[in-house]
């Protein structure tokens, strides 16, 4: 039907308007600091499309994607897990320490490290879940506080218990190196830059999340709780159980965020591991509209922008400009999505009402005849 097709097309407006707005606002900012937007975007484009930049984009996107999934699972039932940040940092630390402490055949070693990460992430998230279920503490408050605690606890554990013994005058604060069986080689190399193999596991995880949310009874209960918690409860969903399960799941996924960097590059928990991915994951989930495919696209866009912006410093432009660009993308996607959603919904309702009227007329005619 032509009309439906037109309505679908409206959805394209969301990413298009976001990108256009992001370019316009970034240009204005660049102009205001006497930089040439044309030059800046051209050099970002040229640098960003080099082979090694593309590889780096994928590597940057993987943790963002996983963080987006962790956040989105909570969002789907109106549970705001702001604690992904703390969950993944403490999980990565424990996983790295445990991975270095054992030697296992390669696939088991990898699986073991992932398992430790997931269990730690889930355990850390469970604190907020229990507080919410038993004491009614809002998860936003508790997870934000748990983020701070995770940072402090992680630093304490690392420097007092998990730190690799210093050799000579070495100052590096890190866990011991994970043996080879607990490392993952590159999937391929583009332009001298490795594409880390964990991207494959991330894709599987995306498929898993999609199937879980849209194809299983658990996912149905989860979505129902998000759309109408009262109706879900009346239908037999136990809200407390649902909060526990969702929070644990979200934390377990969060526990995998650091794995790509750990398996493919650092091989130990060091202070150089990227931080802030848990917070970026919130933006990625928002922009990706809580759908694995959307999250993947958003993660790639953010990963690319981050990578491409590295060139700006060489052009004499502060690369922090890009933070504004990302902010604009988030705002415009969220706003445009809400507008389009309303338009589409009212169109759908109108169409359905018209069709219903036709049905009713047809019925009346048969009754009359």
């Amino acid at each position, binding site marked *: 039907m032509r009309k439906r097709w037109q309505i679908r097309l409206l959805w394209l407006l969301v990413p298009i308007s976001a990108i256009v707005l992001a370019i316009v606002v970034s240009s204005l900012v660049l102009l205001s600091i006497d930089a040439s937007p044309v030059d800046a975007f051209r050099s970002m484009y040229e640098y960003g499309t080099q082979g090694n930049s593309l590889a780096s984009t994928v590597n940057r996107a993987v943790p963002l994607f996983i963080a987006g999934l962790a956040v989105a699972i909570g969002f789907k039932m109106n549970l705001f897990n702001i604690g992904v940040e703390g969950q993944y940092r403490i999980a990565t630390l424990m996983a790295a320490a445990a991975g270095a402490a054992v030697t296992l055949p390669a696939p088991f070693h990898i699986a073991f490290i992932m398992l430790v990460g997931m269990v730690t992430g889930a355990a850390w998230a469970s604190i907020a879940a229990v507080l919410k279920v038993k004491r009614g503490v809002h998860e936003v408050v508790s997870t934000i506080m748990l983020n701070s605690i995770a940072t402090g606890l992680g630093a304490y554990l690392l420097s007092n218990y998990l730190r690799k013994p210093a050799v000579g005058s070495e100052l590096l604060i890190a866990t011991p190196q994970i043996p080879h069986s607990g490392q993952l080689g590159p999937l391929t190399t583009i332009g001298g830059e490795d594409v880390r193999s964990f991207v494959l596991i991330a894709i599987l995880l995306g498929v898993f999340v999609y199937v879980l949310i849209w*194809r*299983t*009874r*658990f*996912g*149905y*209960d989860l*979505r*129902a709780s998000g*759309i*109408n918690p*009262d*109706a*879900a*409860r*009346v*239908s*037999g*969903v*136990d809200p407390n159980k649902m909060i526990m399960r969702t929070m644990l799941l979200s934390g377990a996924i969060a526990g995998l965020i650091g794995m790509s960097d750990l398996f493919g590059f650092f091989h130990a928990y060091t202070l150089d591991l990227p931080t802030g991915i848990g917070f970026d994951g919130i933006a990625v989930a928002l922009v990706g509209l809580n759908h694995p495919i959307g999250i993947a696209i958003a993660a790639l866009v953010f990963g690319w922008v981050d990578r491409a912006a590295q060139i700006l410093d060489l052009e004499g432009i502060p690369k922090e400009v890009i933070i504004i660009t990302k902010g604009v993308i988030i705002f415009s996607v969220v706003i445009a999505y809400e507008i389009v959603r309303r338009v589409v*919904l*009212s169109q*759908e*309702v*109108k*169409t*359905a*009402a018209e*069709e*219903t009227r036709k*049905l*009713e007329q047809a*019925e009346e005619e048969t009754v009359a005849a």
Partner: protein
Amino acid sequence: MAERAPAVELKGITKTFPGVVANDDINLAVQPGEIHAVVGENGAGKSTLMKILYGMLRPDSGTILMDGSGVHFRSPKDAIAAGIGMVHQHFMLATNFTVLENVVLGSEPAHAGALDFGAARARIRELSESHGVPLDPDRLTEDLAVGERQRVEIVKVLYRGARILILDEPTAVLVPQEVVELFGQLRELRAQGVTIIFISHKLDEVLEIADSITVIRDGHTVRTVKPEEVTARQLAELMVGSELPTPETRESTVTEEVLLSVQGLGVRVGARWALEDATFDIHHGEIVGIAGVEGNGQRELVEALIGLRKPDTGSVILAGTDITQWPTRQRRENGLGYIPEDRQGRGLLLPSPLWENTMLGHQTLYPFARGPWINKKGARAQTEHLISEYGVMTPGPDTSALALSGGNQQKLIVGREMTAAPKVLIAAQPTRGIDVGAQAAVWELIREARALGLALLLTSADLEELIGLSDTLYVILRGRLVARLDPATVTPEELGSYMTGAKQAGVA
């Protein structure tokens, strides 16, 4: 001598919404100082019309005249400034405030930055005396009876200088005795020159109180009549356009077998017993009705039965099994069906497609689930079956529930509970706010359920519906079942007396 211009005149008001009956060329003239009733079935468009007059909605076309000159209301603020006041069906009062605080809320009297309650108190006293609406400004609102709370709403509107009062179904929450009091107050207000627009679908009341009656049907104004010119029968025919259906059940199907047994059930909310020592049985093929003024424990009873609330005392036995400790899901899986009183708030996932709504409440059962998986195919097929079987007017199972009219939403809910073949069905306010056609359909479905041998528990604010459908009738008052009545002999007035506690009897 030229006649005075109408206090309010609506000309050619049209308002369209998707999926619901709205207003189509409505014409209405209200003379100053009269009580003008607007009557029509649920869903005829009365509420839409009043929302337009009160500035909550804007008409697609048409004009509003006050005292002969055109007005445009952008919001209720404009309407209030023009002297229109509205008393909503559901009171909008802060119960932890005093009467005085509630009345001034939103237009607080300030004097040099501080609240000036003294002047307000005097003003409220004066208003309530001069308009015959007795009210003590310093009482706490939560201590007031429903009728008194309504008076607070009326005084609140007068306090803001309203000359025209819109009362939306003011008697819906009152028992017959309180209605008599309200009518006395309305006559007093009229004597003081206040113009009253009275919205109702209760014809006897309208005939008693109104000076003119405008009938609305399917969004059109049918006619404006004087009460002395028509009988209740004629008015009903104007309203419905045909014969009115009645909620009578036929021959008794009650058997000896008890399907649901409730023993000494008690629910505490805070320090108060919201439900106390409720004991009754529902047999195979029996409809048990629970009558009561809203907020007397019906909600707690229903929630304790469906498992949303843990009872503090007593037990619930479903077909011989004690289910008191069971969670909602287990109860549902074992044959307890539930039609919630708040259709959209508790019964539907509005933005979701119909097939996902058909699953709701039965998502663990055939044909909706296969192991841990959702069976979309099965759910869609079941939804299609339900649409044709229960006459749900909709293009198909992928339409969102939002696009259905209230009546069709209710048919879907009733249908999904019925097709799950429950043993016991709890129907809370199953016909509230739906149009007359859907109401008749729901009554028919309830009768069918009874004929199939279900045990039904029915709560309703519609006393005729309760009397007409029930085999056994209990009255609930302050959390207790205070009377067991025979619906074959009881009158709505008698029922009302029990509901307020004016009349007492033991539970047989």
